[in-house]
Structure formats: C-alpha cells, structure tokens
C-alpha cells in the first residue's frame, strides 16, 4: 500500500504545474551560475572546474527557498482543492498518506536538485576540467546534501499541514529556515558553547558543501538533519491524524 501511495504521488507531481515551474527556475538559476562563472573565470584567469561548479550549485540559500516553495505548494494545494478529502476516505491509513507523500516529494527533489548539480559538473568538466577531490569527501558531501534536502522537505511538509495555506506556509517556513541560524546562536550564547552555532540550517548547509569540513562535524550535522526529518514528519502525522477533514 505504501508503494501505491508513493507511485501515485509521483504521478501527481509530474502532472503538476508547480513541478515544471520549479524546473524552469532551477534551470534559470543554473544558467545564471554558468554565465557568471564563465565571466569570473575569463576576467580573473581563475580556472573553473566541474567540482567547484558542483559545489557552487548548492551555495545559495535560494535553492532551499525553492525546495520549500515546491513542497508547500504541492501539499497546500491538496487542502485548497479539497482533494485531501477524497484521498482520505479510501481506507488508507493517514500515516501512510503523510509518509508516502513525503517520500515521493523527497525523491523527486533529490533527483532534480542533484541532477542540476551534476549537469553543472559535466558542463564545467567539458569546458575546463573536472578538478580534484577525494572521492570519500565527495560522497560525504552528497550524502550531507541529501540530508539537507530531506530536512527541508520535512520542514515544508510540517508547516503545510500546520497552516493548510500556501501563503502562510511559505512565509513560516522561510522564517523558520532563516531563524534557525539565530536560534542556534542564541543556544550557543545561553550554553556558552560556540560549537552550537553551526546547527542553524543555513550554516549546516555551508559546512556540508565545504570539502574542508571535518568529517566528524559533517556526520554530526547529518544526524541532526535526520532528527529534524523525524521530528517534522512525526509532527505532520500528528497534525493530520486526528484532524477532521472538511
């Protein structure tokens, strides 16, 4: 039954306008990245590499906002169109609906986001060179990015089920993302442990994509991100579980 939910959600995503809107935005972002990269390289004689372009694909906060908007619009549209009512009266447990939807959105988002990154890597490799990186470090970075995507999708899922409105959910999720860095700083101040400042979502992303980050820190950050996934999915399920669906 879970596979049915996931496959039906994937089918629905491919039929949605917001998916193609997000693809276009990501395409434009990556095109701008390519153009600005090429200009910087030409003007300052910096050699571009596929690896550096791949890192650069995930550098901007914009990628997180796009993922949040994508998730929020997919889920809140179910409330707006009232299709959540039709989904929920077919005898499928609500936890399967929440989890299945989360898995489907996460899979698509990972494929798309990492896919665009790999396109940049290929383009820059063809134009210049691949560059050098330790394969373990590269894999660790990618696993970390997957954790970032999973946590971001989880956050978007939670605020969508909380607010049921796309506008409020978008604002709330962006505030939570930006605010997480400040909350981490506040904890660091209160506990006098500066290390806690790294656990804001923005900071965690920067550390993950930096090949020079300590492996232990990257692993810890990945654990924290997976905890965020658990908390947000559990929260979404609890919100959805006992709610009367209008």
């Amino acid at each position, binding site marked *: 039954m879970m596979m049915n*939910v996931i496959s039906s959600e994937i089918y629905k995503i491919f*039929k949605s306008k917001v998916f193609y809107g997000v693809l276009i935005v990501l395409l434009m972002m990556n095109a701008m990245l390519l153009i600005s990269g090429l200009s910087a390289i030409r003007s300052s004689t910096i050699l571009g590499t596929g690896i550096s372009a791949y890192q650069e694909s995930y550098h901007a906060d914009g990628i997180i906002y796009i993922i949040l908007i994508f998730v929020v619009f997919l889920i809140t549209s179910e409330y707006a169109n009232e*299709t959540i009512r039709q*989904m929920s009266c*077919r*005898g499928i447990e609500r936890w399967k609906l929440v989890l299945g939807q989360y898995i489907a959105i996460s899979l698509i988002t990972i494929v798309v986001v990492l896919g665009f990154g790999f396109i940049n890597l290929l383009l820059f490799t063809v134009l210049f060179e691949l560059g050098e990186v330790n394969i373990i470090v590269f894999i660790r970075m990618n696993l970390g990015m997957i954790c970032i995507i999973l946590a971001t999708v989880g956050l978007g899922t939670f605020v969508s089920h909380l607010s049921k409105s796309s506008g409020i959910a978008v604002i709330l999720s962006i505030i939570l993302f930006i605010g997480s860095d400040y909350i981490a700083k506040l904890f660091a101040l209160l506990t006098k442990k500066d290390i806690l400042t790294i656990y804001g979502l923005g900071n965690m992303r920067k550390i993950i994509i930096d090949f020079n980050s300590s492996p232990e820190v990257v692993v810890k950050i990945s654990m924290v991100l997976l905890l965020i996934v658990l908390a947000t999915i559990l929260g979404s399920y609890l919100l959805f579980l006992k709610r*009367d669906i209008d």
Partner: protein
Amino acid sequence: MKSVLQTCSLTKKYGKEKAVNKVSLNIEKGDIYGLIGKNGAGKTTIMKMICGLASQSQGDIKLFGSSDLKKGRKRIGATIEQPALYPNMTAKENLIYYNKLLGITDYSNAQEILSLVGLEDTGKKKTKSFSMGMKQRLSIAISLIGNPDFLILDEPTNGLDPLGIKQIRELLLKLNYENEITILISSHILGELDKIATRYGVIKNGELIDELSAYELEKSCEKCISLVVNDSEKAVSIIKNIIKSNDYEVLENGVINIYDFLDIPEEINKALVENSVLVSNLTLKNNDIESYFIKMMGED
C-alpha cells in the same frame, strides 16, 4: 440480509453543540438508503464519520458487520460535499491517479467508468475547465474506482441538468441491481430520492427522527378517506360487508383509513351512520411525499 452499515448512538459534538445526536442507522446489503434533511441537519457530518473524515464524539460504527473500519473503508467509494478534483489533470488522469493510489494496475477501467458517467469525450480538457455538472459526474466516477461494495454519495445530483439527473439515477439503479452495490445517498431534493430509494432516514437537527421503507412511505402518502369512529370493530364490519372494501387500515383511537371508494365519501358516511356508528371526523387525505417530509421536519 447482511448488514453493510450499522451505527449505534453516533454523536458528533463541536464544542458544546451537537451536530449529530445519537443516530442509529442500519443499512442492509442491496439497500438504496436515502438520507433526507434540511441543509445543516447533519447528513454530511454523518457521512464524514462513516468515511473516516471526521471522528465521532460518541457511538460506534460497524461496516460489513465488523468494527474493523480500516478494512471496511477499503470497500467504500464516496463523494462528500463538492467535487474534489485535480484541476490541472484531465478526467482520465484523475481516475488513473486513484487507480494508482488503490494499487490497480490496469487503467482500462478509467475509460469504461468515464463512459458510464457520460464523460467519455472530455479528452485532454483539464478539470478546471469543467462545468459543475461535469465535475459532479467525475466525482461519482472517482467513487466507483476500486469496485466498491458500498457507495456513499452526498447530494450527487447537485449542479446536474434534468437529463444528467436522470442518467445518474439510472446509473445508480443499474449499479444497485446488476452489481449489488449498496448505496447511501443524501439529498434535500425529495423528488430525486423517491425515484430510487428503497429506504429513508429523516434527519432533523442532528437526530434521526424517522426511518421507513419505500413501501411505508408510499402507504403514508397514499390518498385515503380518513375516519374517526366510536366503534372500530363495527365500522370495519360495515366497510367489508356493505361498502365492500378490503383496502383499509385500522389505526389507534378509532381512526380508519380507506384507500378505495375515494369518490363516494358521503356514501361511506351514510352507511356507517345508518348502522349506528358515529363518525366524528371524515377527511380526504392527499399527502404527497414533499408535504409528508415537510410536515415531519416540522415546517409549514
């Protein structure tokens, strides 16, 4: 007869207000059960609780004789309130989605179901461009995915033109007769229900105030001469032997309803009086279904 739905003292409270109050329904296999009530009476709330969209505050629900509602709800198809469709998908794509959700891999049923509800020619038109009637038909089509044993339809003919209403009515009768699908259908348009329902439940202010079969309703609405006499036994003997009527009904408190000889009430009165039966009241009753229900629901 196997029970498809049983509710026992089903109650739904919103704060202190009871939207549904101790409703005990029993729907048998093969029934077309018409749930009648004004807007806001509680019909939709009852249907939502059966489908699992709303939790009950009190009471029990059994589906197909079992309290395992997760299992029972897999055998239900429902359309509750207004049509809920994916606006950027076509009719067929909406059906394919629900096929996938229920694990049905053969999508050929989608075109068959669209033909059943009269949407076979919608092609690539997105549902956001559909009329209300088309959306309603597609909503019914969605409820048929998975070959349900029990259909729950909340005002399914809303927005349909008279021909569409007739087509849906014939479809429901066909599904009930050929596929043995039990149907719970709500409406505030009595004229629609009385053409298909085999049983009725009347909801008023969240309470089930009456349940009756189609036969009982017909009898209640049948034209008759209603008498109030001082001696029912003697009056019956006169009705049988002198007036020669066998189509009558003896009720409490000296009330007798006669369903034939409606054109000669004066002769009936004369025969009774001449044989020392006092007639304190004689009226020609002519309830149509609408008047009957309006009276029951306490309206003038």
